[in-house]
């Protein structure tokens, strides 16, 4: 017996586990399908968390508890894994996203200027989502298009040999407006990625 099948067998014993609730939420149904697909194997935690993020857009405390119960893992383990990997996020992303590659080639060719240009044009900080939820400015580890540096993604579409104005134009075209001038955005603190994580993880080092 190979290891994979050994673990599968261990998982099969639990395939009658209670389904994710609420049953009338289509997202819960999708998650159930995913859990069944991995046969409730504890070692599939990362795959399940990817699925949760695909389905719900982000990871929340409630769903993490559900996952912990379904995979029969201690909640502290689930949170530990979820917060270890950078791709998991604890807050909903903005309607539009601009992701600047910060790989070495892009660094050498001015990724900083791209970041700053977008940040200033739309009033959104690095790794932040603007208070109105219109746009998130994120950074990516090398996306492996170094020959085209500097590179950014606007709503997932690669912009090669990018210039700041080009990104600003692309985001404007996608429908992102400049920040409100009356300082409303100042009054309302920007949603930092960490804040929501802190809600899930109170007492966490901010």
């Amino acid at each position, binding site marked *: 017996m190979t290891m994979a099948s050994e673990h599968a067998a261990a998982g099969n014993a639990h395939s009658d586990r209670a389904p994710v609730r609420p049953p009338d939420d289509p997202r819960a149904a999708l998650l159930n399908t995913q859990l069944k697909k991995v046969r409730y194997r504890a070692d599939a935690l990362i795959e399940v968390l990817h699925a949760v993020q695909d389905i719900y857009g982000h990871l929340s*405390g409630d769903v993490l508890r559900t996952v*912990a119960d379904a995979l029969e893992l201690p909640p502290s383990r689930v*949170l530990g894994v979820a917060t270890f990997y950078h791709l998991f996020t604890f807050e909903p992303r903005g309607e539009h996203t601009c992701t600047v590659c910060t790989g070495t080639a892009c660094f050498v060719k001015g990724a900083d200027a791209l970041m700053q240009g977008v940040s200033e044009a739309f009033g959104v900080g690095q790794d932040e989502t603007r208070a109105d939820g219109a746009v998130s400015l994120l950074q990516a580890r090398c996306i492996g298009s170094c020959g085209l540096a500097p590179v950014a993604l606007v709503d997932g579409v690669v912009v090669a040999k990018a210039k700041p104005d080009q990104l600003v134009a692309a985001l404007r075209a996608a429908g992102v407006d400049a920040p409100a001038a009356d300082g409303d955005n100042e009054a309302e603190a920007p949603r930092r990625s960490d804040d929501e994580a802190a809600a899930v*993880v109170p007492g966490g080092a901010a």
Partner: protein
Amino acid sequence: MAGVTLMIDGVEVEAPAGESIMQAARRAGINVPGLCQLDGVSVVGACRLCMVEVAGTPRPRPACATTVADAMDVHTDTKELREHRRVLLQMLFAEGQHICAVCVANGACELQTLAAEVGVDHVHFTPPAARLSMDLSHERFGYDPSRCVLCTRCVRACAEVEGAYTWGVAGRGREAHLVADLGQPWGEATSCTSCGKCVSVCPVGALFEKGTSVGERRVERALVSSLTARRQRESAREVLK
């Protein structure tokens, strides 16, 4: 089990095979500094304070996680090791807010004692300007994250000895921190059995009994170690029966 003979700091030491350098050294009266190692729970080799030089190896090895071997030549207290330990301890002080004067563990703190022993009389790194709030939600215990040294003794005692898995490490790198269950206040962590093992193994004042004031730490650190040792002895007897 066959024994081995090795040299530790120029002293000939006999040790059973499978023992760690740290254990062998201790029996020979040589105290190798360390924070994450705790008898009775698994070895992680993470604090790196117990690094020792082993002749013939390119870099120092953690004494807690290196098994003795015959004819091994170990040095635990060279000038270089001492200097590294001083730097490492300073890093620990700078990671949190370690203010002995107002700490429950003052006078009974392993970090404080190590600093004095190794010769850390000031800290060259700047502590972070972070605001970490205490968790006093548990009815009997408190947790001050600013005093945590991430030795994970509590995590291992909770998982391996109590079996509750309440404590875990969340976050990564410098953001790594302890969490109870899904990060809710400790008092609301449903898996916690309030057994207090985590508090007893904490080398510093991060986990403490409520109602104890500066320098009043009372719990016995050897509790978990003796518990595990007793358990192993008893189960060995069971097998013999």
